[in-house]
């Protein structure tokens, strides 16, 4: 039954992939003779689609890991301030590259994203180990967001106009900035992060019974938590570095998967999250580039419009 549902989701994903790559905003056949349109398809649309696929999967997988680790269904890379941390680090890099030009490099940006994300994750781990993982870590994330945006303001003040515009566009979220080597690097690191998470999923599932019981079942909870945090740092940090801080996918999709597939087989859940996360990113991308209003809507606007009402629904349901 569950495998059946997952395969439906998978076919949905393939359909979305096709629409996103070939049909939006207008149909381009990959088989027509060479021309500017086919060029557009291979050099712009396909990289964009693949980026959306990896970004969606990475963000929802890291959201799933964070929610299970902190046993808090509202956790996610965006709300815990992980994306803000990555954002600040990338902002420093983009704006600092005016003074130190060698910094402006795809690899440097992703490294900055990873470092920023992991730093915030370590802070969150510290806070949760002292004060528990209920509302406090969510509040902590909001405050981290405020602090980083204040620091960002300071950076913006120092920036030159061109860099400022680059950074602002980046922070609206976009899947279309990643091409060639960057795309390869992004894809490989996302896959590695997901594979690493896949290997330690059974241990994470044992932590459902509480950390102490998991310890007595032979799980080294400290090591597993740390490994999961690094995984999350890689996945959400690099996705944020390349596509901008994208909200709601990381929080909404794990909840959707948990509602659709009630299972403690976390390896299966990882797959589900990957597929559904990629699907949501592709839907956002399709809406974003379908030119409803005559121009491309930023991706973050779409994810917020889809994910926002859903989060409110979760909150209301939790209240009951």
């Amino acid at each position, binding site marked *: 039954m569950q495998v059946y549902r997952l395969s439906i989701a998978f076919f949905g994903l393939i359909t979305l992939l096709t629409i996103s790559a070939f049909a939006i905003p207008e149909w381009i056949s990959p088989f027509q003779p060479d021309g500017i349109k086919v060029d557009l398809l291979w050099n712009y649309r396909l990289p964009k689609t693949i980026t959306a696929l990896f970004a969606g999967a990475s963000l929802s997988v890291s959201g799933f890991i964070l929610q299970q680790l902190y046993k808090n269904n509202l956790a996610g890379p965006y709300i815990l301030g992980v994306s803000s941390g990555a954002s600040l680090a990338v902002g420093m890099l983009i704006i600092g590259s005016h003074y130190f030009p060698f910094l402006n490099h795809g690899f440097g940006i992703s490294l900055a994203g990873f470092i920023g994300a992991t730093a915030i994750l370590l802070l969150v781990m510290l806070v949760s180990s002292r004060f528990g993982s209920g509302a406090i870590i969510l509040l902590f994330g909001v405050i981290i967001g405020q602090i980083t945006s204040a620091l960002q303001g300071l950076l913006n003040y120092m920036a030159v106009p061109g860099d400022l515009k680059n950074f602002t566009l980046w922070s609206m979220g976009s899947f279309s900035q990643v091409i060639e080597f960057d795309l390869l690097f992004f894809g490989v690191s996302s896959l590695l992060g997901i594979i690493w998470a896949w290997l330690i999923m*059974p*241990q994470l*599932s*044992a932590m*459902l*019974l*509480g950390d*102490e*019981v998991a*310890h*007595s*079942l*032979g*799980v*080294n909870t400290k090591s597993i938590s740390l490994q999961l945090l690094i995984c999350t740092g890689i996945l959400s940090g690099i996705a944020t570095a390349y596509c901008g801080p994208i909200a709601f996918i990381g929080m909404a999709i794990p909840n959707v998967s*948990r509602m659709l*597939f*009630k*299972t*403690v*087989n976390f*390896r299966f859940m990882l797959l589900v999250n990957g597929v559904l996360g990629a699907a949501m990113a592709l839907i956002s991308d399709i809406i974003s580039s379908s030119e409803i209003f005559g121009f491309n809507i930023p991706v973050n606007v779409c994810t917020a419009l889809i994910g926002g009402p859903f989060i409110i629904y979760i909150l209301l349901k939790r209240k009951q």
Partner: protein
Amino acid sequence: MYGANWWPIHYLHFIKKKTVMDPILKLVNLSIGQESVIVDSIHAQAFKNDLIVLTGENGSGKSTLLKTIAGIIKSISGEVFISGDSISLLPQKKLAQKLAFASTQRIREDYIKIEDVVRFGQFPYAQLDDTEESSREIEQAIALMGIDKIRHKYLNQVSDGEWQKANIARVLAQKTDLILMDEPTAFLDYPSRMRLYRDLKEICLTQNKTIIVSTHDIDSVKGYASFYWHIDQGKLNILQDSPTWVI
């Protein structure tokens, strides 16, 4: 050629004579506590078929003692031996096959089934993939606790009593000689408590287990306990009869 210790007798030190009267659990001069010492110079032993009831006031160190025995908290000094092996030298996975721990925490997630909880008991042996042997152990534990009818219920739909049964089935599926339970009756009503202790005693005798249970509930455990370990003013006293409270 092979050094001085070539004769097989040098490698036979791992063979130990085991008799019925060897203790399953032995605490030697143990001091426990998280940051400062709560209870010190604990000397105690537990044998096969014992149901030991751990009592003491709130904050006296009952949970800390159980978690120290389970290896979750490190002892401040002294040693814990399980079937003759010091737990500080045992790898965590080996320890998980000798000792099971159930915490007070009640889990209410709406996507975990009773059956899944029991299945986690086989985690130290076969992580997520069910082998033939592990599914047999799981079925056995479910049958023993009589939770076959509710095995497909989700944890948000079961009562506290049913949850505790699942919890006990889980520790049974872990196939350990020693079982530690931290206040299993905390949320149960009086008849369910009586039933739980009766079940635990039966498990002790029929399955050849040693069970240590911490509780405040001396009334319903009466008649089932082999010994009482009573923590009072930083010392562990071993009593034959139920402790009386001095107010």
